């Protein structure tokens, strides 16, 4: 019986794609792709461990291949599924792509395969959270004039929402801060960049007129409920409590 080999990558998307490229080339069934952060602590006696170094070229060529042989939509779907951070997603993606390369873009209808269902569902989950966050993200004006928005999403959606705000809030500088992953998206009216270097707390002080507008919003929010139609359960259905922490109107 062939021993299991673990391909360990750095946790990044290109890292995973590199590992998947290697797995396609080796053509062995006993490979498990796992990111650094999920690496097993106690090493198994009969398993092999290979560290995969991220190779941008390999990763990009795989994406190109997916685009041309399967479809752009499925290329995006894989990215979304990856951002779900579900443990074991890498092997589902590998399986999905194997089928994709075999039958083309119809793979998404192959609902009898567990990997297809999983990837379809996870990418939809991530997509829904992305859309929700486009509405729920709240910016506050800092003393520097920069607008700052914190969030703690379930999935790693910062790269999915920043482009929307770059187009929309074109004439203001802003920061989006994923507090649970310590990731930032920064926009200075010229460029959009992503970074993990943190911003010191004293730079995050509120502008003097910020509280005025927060209060106006809260006032507005309080006055638009139709009391005869009060239905808190329905409200919670649309607005789960996990998002209340950074919502101006709920604080």
């Amino acid at each position, binding site marked *: 019986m062939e021993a299991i080999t673990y391909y360990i990558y750095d946790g990044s998307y290109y890292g995973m794609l590199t590992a998947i490229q290697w797995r396609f080339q080796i053509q062995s069934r006993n490979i498990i792709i796992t990111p650094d952060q999920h690496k097993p602590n106690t090493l198994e006696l009969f398993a092999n461990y290979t560290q995969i170094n991220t190779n941008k070229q390999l990763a990009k060529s795989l994406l190109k291949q997916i685009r041309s042989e399967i479809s752009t939509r499925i290329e995006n779907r894989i990215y979304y599924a990856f951002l779900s951070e579900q443990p074991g997603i890498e092997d589902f993606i590998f399986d999905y792509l194997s089928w994709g390369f075999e039958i083309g873009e119809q793979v998404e209808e192959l609902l009898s395969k567990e990997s297809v269902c999983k990837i379809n569902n996870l990418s939809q989950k991530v997509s829904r959270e992305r859309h929700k966050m486009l509405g729920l993200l709240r*910016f506050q004006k800092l003393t520097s004039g920069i607008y700052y928005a914190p969030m703690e999403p379930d999935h790693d959606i910062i790269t999915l929402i920043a482009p929307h705000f770059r187009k929309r809030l074109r004439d203001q500088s802003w920061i989006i801060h994923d507090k649970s992953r310590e990731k930032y998206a920064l926009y200075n009216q010229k460029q959009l960049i992503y970074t993990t270097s943190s911003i010191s707390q004293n730079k995050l002080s509120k502008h003097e007129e910020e509280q005025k507008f927060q209060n106006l919003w809260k006032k507005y929010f309080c006055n*638009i409920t139709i009391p005869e139609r009060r239905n808190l359960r329905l409200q919670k259905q649309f607005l789960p409590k996990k998002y209340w922490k950074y919502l101006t109107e709920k604080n």
Partner: protein
Amino acid sequence: MELTEKLAILAQGAKYDVSCSSSGSNRSNTKGLGNASYSGICHSWTEDGRCVSLLKILFSNICIYDCFYCINGTSNDIPRTSFTPDEVAKLTVEFYRRNYIEGLFLSSAITVDKDYTMEQLVNTVKKLRTDYNFQGYIHLKGIPGADSDLLTKAGRLVDRLSINIELPNRDSLKQLAPDKNGREILTAMKTVRHGIKVYKENKKQLQKNSRSSKPLPSFVPAGQSTQLIVGASNDSDKEILNLTENLYQKIGLKRVFYSAFIPVTNKHNDKLPAIVSPPYQREHRLYQADWLLRFYNFTSTELFSDNNFNLLLELDPKAHYALINLHLFPKEINTASKTELLRIPGVGPKSANRIVKARKHFHLNYQDLKRMGVVLKRARYFITCKGKYYGGVPFKKELIENRLISGPGYKQLSLWGN
């Protein structure tokens, strides 16, 4: 009066205008602030479960009219105030920058007279677009009877323009809103329709003549909508839906909204129908019927049996249709056409598409249907799968109706609360 107090009063005054959508426009900016998201975005939800996507306010609640169903009627004793165009513009922009809203929903009571009110609204919107360079979503309420030039001016600046019809026929309008004029309402709607038509024709010409580089100013890109009050008059659902159908087909409206009548004063109780509580369930059924008209190719007359002029409260309109047309069922899932599939209770456009797609590869089992998004709790009584019937009861109207209403142990939750 302080801005915060004005905001409270004028938000209260606008809340019964239920339209909440921010979709249908893909306005973009090249410089300046904002854009519109074609699918619309919900930014929050009120305690009554309604979506908040726009800053919904009245410009003024000082009204010369005295409509019986309206909180802003001149004889009601409420605090009165108005914004200035600058105040509205600044509020909109500051909320927008903080991502509280997709844009502005601006309505007004009739202050001084119709033209003056419409002028103020147009000035506000113009200020937003030009002085503040705001390219977010704007939904403006039109004032029936105001100068049509003002309406056209507004159309070039906003994403959605709507004029509320309020009541389904002239008699009800005369009784409950004696200051309003049915003809003016219809004329205003036709003006907007005309503007949209002209814009679309010009756009087509421009596309043919592709050398022209000047972009055409849009005209109400997200379309026209309106609102009907449900339960303030004795008009039947059949009449309401017939009107709705005409509004969609003849005036080309994008949406009709229904709002359950909530009595705001005790003054006109003799003129208004006696109701124990606002007709939320009836409103819910009307929305379901409206969806059938727009997405399922139903006509309004199909939803009513010969002696029934109102939708049933205990059963959704699609299921009711199936029961009064039981001779058309059960449909075989593997061979029914897409139009026929859409008529099955529990099958929507998405499920119908999935079924048609999947059928190309293999025959469908009953177990496959759940994955396709079919609501089997309703559909099971009206379909066969490979010839087999899964309803669990003999194929008889009374038995199926009973199962649908009281269910094999489940309760249908109303989306709009009880």
